[in-house]
């Protein structure tokens, strides 16, 4: 029994270590022009990321089954309301497989920025989304400059600092 417990503990420790190592890996597209994405918004209009060249763009990938996604979306909503007039665009992209469920989750969030529902299964792969929530910051030229995985309460201040730097460029 002790041996089983030891093996279980060792397995948990290895899993935690691997997850943590992955979270700290730099995003593979960092420093490169971000892929283009077009998706339908909840208002029924299609939105294309490349049309926002000239603005700083925040793209948040999330899913209804992700626990911290809601908190991150709320934080991004606050940031969008503060810096929206300074050239900041925030987009939320739902990656749920079921479009009807994705739309239902997106509508439930009640945020002020466009929520997009991607029906293309390759979206996550194109943007190298390996964990949810994931948020990407694109500069005014469309280059991916910052990527954050997961969300903790203290991350909002970090987002604000990094976005202010991009807006001031």
């Amino acid at each position, binding site marked *: 029994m*002790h*041996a089983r*417990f*030891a*093996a279980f*503990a*060792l397995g*948990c*420790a*290895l899993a*935690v*270590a691997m997850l*943590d*190592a992955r979270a700290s890996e730099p995003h593979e597209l*960092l*420093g490169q*022009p971000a892929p283009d994405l*077009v*998706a*339908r918004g909840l208002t029924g*209009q*299609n*939105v*294309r990321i490349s*049309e926002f*060249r000239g603005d700083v763009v925040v793209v948040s990938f999330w899913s209804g089954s992700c626990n911290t996604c809601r908190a991150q979306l709320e934080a991004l909503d606050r940031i969008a309301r503060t810096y929206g007039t300074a050239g900041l665009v925030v987009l939320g992209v739902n990656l749920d497989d079921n479009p009807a469920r994705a739309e239902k989750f997106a509508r439930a969030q009640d945020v002020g920025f466009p929520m997009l529902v991607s029906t293309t299964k390759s979206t996550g792969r194109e943007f190298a989304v390996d964990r949810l929530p994931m948020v990407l910051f694109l*500069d005014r*030229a*469309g*280059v*991916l*400059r*910052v990527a*954050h995985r997961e969300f903790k309460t203290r991350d909002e201040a*970090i987002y604000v600092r*990094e976005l202010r*730097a*991009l807006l001031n*460029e």
Partner: protein
Amino acid sequence: MHITKSLRLALMALAIITMPAFAQEPPATPAGVAPPAEIATDAGVADAPAGTLLSEPVDGAEAPAPESGEPPADTRALDETVQDLKKDVVDLNRELFVLEEELLFPANTQVAVFISMDIGEFFALDSLTLKIDNREVANYLYTPREAEALLRGGVHRVYLGNLKVGEHQLVAFFNGKGPNERDYKRGANIEFEKGVGAKYLELKITDRQRKGQPEFAIKDWE
């Protein structure tokens, strides 16, 4: 006894492996922010505002303070050189793009499908799906800005591909809002002969005023 020893070893391994997980995260900073690309890419060069200085200043060179608000002569010469280089890069990029297209889509197999809209009072385009020989080859979502560009006379190349010589069939499905803002989906098809030269097909959306309905047609540019 040996069981307790193995438990102890497992706990030590647990502690060693999880130590980095509990280490304090360094503040996200400059390391978390990728520096801007120093080498101008094609898009970067094309999009850089006019007058952007792309090269580093020469070491030891001191720029004299401008007296009348104009840049000093050596800086102007450098700006002009940079602008010339930028133009050369843009020209080269365009030539490379044309060569790439000719290589990937040679004229004897090339087929291109374009879409154009006229007036647009009876139909607001939302998306388009193309099938050639029953195989989906293109699926495009149009944003309001892109639809507006089409209404203003723009022509969009929806598909560029290769087909062998012979008979083929193109089917296009148009989705959008029709009269009275109702969801509207229509299809159009054409059978065409692919010869040895490049084949161009145009999807035309026009307003049929008499019936108050949009009309979808496919035109073969012979």
